[in-house]
């Protein structure tokens, strides 16, 4: 399958371009801080970094309205930040504090936020797809023009839930935007070692879902493709599938000697770093100055410092509340 025929680089407008860069940088710096805090044992559990893939979440999020819904995976810090959940409440969540966006009950893999319709990080590979289908069904049945964007890795494509959901969403023409982030590895399993058919778009297309690959290292391409896809979904065209071709620069989680891939390969992909390449592009087009970069870095550093302070100052949910929210407190009418 080839790239979308209508894909043309739109003219970049400085303000927006700097915003996209800023969003990617926020995620990058936030996660670098997380890795540091993990080593300092402030953050525990699993920690799946998004570093290398930032263009996807940032680009895709631009196509979504405030009322659209998002379902993501355990590698969702980037999506949560780009969606507008505050760095402070995400950091507090990673600390396990009750000021966190899931009151410390979810941690890194389970960021939730009702205000932005962020229906979670889901730590079951493929487990979020049926939720997305149902959210879209609810929107459709209630005549709301919303889109549900569902992010997942290419590993999920091997799961039965993926195929069930492709079929159901297409059959019922539901407004789901399937965003597959193909970073080539599911933990240590390379795509070609787990799939008989490695063209992911073909799989979606076989369910009569329009499907296009996107350069996931190019934030503008990600934004443009998602805009186009979201438009089609919003117009009632049923689901849409985008395969973002990307790469994670770090380990799968925090501990992973990366025996399954060559250093050389990682270095090659790093030359396509979505942040440095975008910066270079903006500079060459005269849209970005050294001052801009310095200002961005300072603002982001301040935001992250505040997030860490907020998390540090956060409080532990009283143990007496352990079983709170197993069931709703609201009694049936």
């Amino acid at each position, binding site marked *: 399958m080839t790239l979308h025929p209508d894909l043309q680089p739109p003219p970049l407008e400085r303000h927006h371009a700097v915003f996209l860069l800023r969003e990617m940088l926020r995620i990058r710096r936030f996660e670098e801080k997380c890795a540091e805090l993990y080593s300092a044992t402030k953050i525990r559990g699993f920690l799946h970094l998004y570093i290398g893939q930032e263009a996807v979440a940032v680009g895709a999020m631009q196509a979504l309205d405030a009322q659209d819904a998002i379902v993501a995976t355990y590698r969702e810090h980037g999506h949560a930040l780009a969606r507008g959940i505050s760095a402070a409440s995400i950091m507090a969540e990673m600390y396990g504090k009750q000021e966190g966006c899931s009151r410390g009950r979810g941690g890194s893999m389970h960021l939730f936020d009702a205000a932005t319709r962020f229906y*979670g990080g889901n730590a079951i590979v493929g487990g979020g797809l049926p939720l997305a289908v149902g959210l879209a*069904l609810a929107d459709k049945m209630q005549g709301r023009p919303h889109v549900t964007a569902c992010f997942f890795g290419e590993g999920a494509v091997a799961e039965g839930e993926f195929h069930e959901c492709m079929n159901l969403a297409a059959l019922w023409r539901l407004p789901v935007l399937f965003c597959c982030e193909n970073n080539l590895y599911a933990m240590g399993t390379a795509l070609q070692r787990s799939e008989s058919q490695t063209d992911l778009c073909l799989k979606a297309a076989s369910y009569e879902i329009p499907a296009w690959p996107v350069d996931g290292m190019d934030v503008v391409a990600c934004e443009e493709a998602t805009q186009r896809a979201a438009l089609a979904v919003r117009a009632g065209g049923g689901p849409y599938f985008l395969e973002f071709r990307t790469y994670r620069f770090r380990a799968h989680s925090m501990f992973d000697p990366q025996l399954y891939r060559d250093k050389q390969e990682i270095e090659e992909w790093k030359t396509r770093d979505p942040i440095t390449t975008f910066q270079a592009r903006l500079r060459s087009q005269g849209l970005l100055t050294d001052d801009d970069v310095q200002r961005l870095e300072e603002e982001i550093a301040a935001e992250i410092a505040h997030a860490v302070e907020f998390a540090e100052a956060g409080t532990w949910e009283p143990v007496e509340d352990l079983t709170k929210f197993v069931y709703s407190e609201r009694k049936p*009418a």
Partner: protein
Amino acid sequence: MTAERKTVRLTYREAIRQAIREALQRDPRVFLMGEDVGRYGGCFAVSKGLLEEFGPERIRDTPLSESAFVGAGIGAALGGMRPIVEIMTVNFSLLALDQIVNNAATILHMSGGQFNIPLVIRMTTGAGRQLAAQHSHSLEGWYAHIPGIKVLTPATLEDARGMLWTALQDPDPVLIFEHGGLYNMEGELPADAGAVDIDRAAVRRPGTDVSLITYGGSLGKALQAAEELAALGIQAEVVDLRTLRPLDTETILASVTRTHRAVIIDEGWRSGSLSAEISARIMEGAFYELDAPVARVCSAEVPIPYARHLEEAALPQVGTIVATVREMMGAHG
């Protein structure tokens, strides 16, 4: 002067159908979704005629995709609908365990109370119809193990008619297990029968000598056993648990405190089971009230066989219940 309540004669199946119909009439957010619920009329004919009455938007035939449509039910509930999801039998629900256990049961807690899931899942359970080992199991006890969901087991026409509406008012996921042997059970029900509570166990027959604690498809057997025991001068009290999670421990303990003996009748297997749980609660809460060790009549530890004589031998029967009680009374009475 009390006016005579008008009654109607109907089956358990019709009682459930009426409950679904009423729910669809009363709340536009309610819809029914599952395999063959529409054109086929439901694999046990529960939803027969509802498609004609409510149309395909609200009586939704799904593909054979238990995980996708159960998960879609969760998503639709998150999106403001009140789905009733039908799974043909509990055996098939295993293909949706991921969605039920990892999503429906966890999201409220994992999201720090932000997202509740007002979903009802109905399914058939139980043996007795020579359907062999992949259509006959009683796994409701497994589900009762899971915090975050509620488990209902209507054993009477009144509960078949009344539990659904209450379940739909519940803010959290509720599973309703309909024993396949009950669908043709016929009887009188007040014409204006409606919602019932889903919090309390019910004493279906008062007695003084022994408590027969049971639910669902075994209630009828326990009542018949009580009848036979009465002829032998033994007054058995029959407790219908109605709801397996949360268990109404209070009613169980109150009954045992009255009778000082308990026999638990459960079509599930005894190892690691609901009957074991009830027995443990009696030990914890009424040990000193007991005149005899708690006894259990459960299914034999085999996959339920096809041949009638073997199936009958595998299941709790009236004769076994009577014999168990007599032995208990003889040895310790």
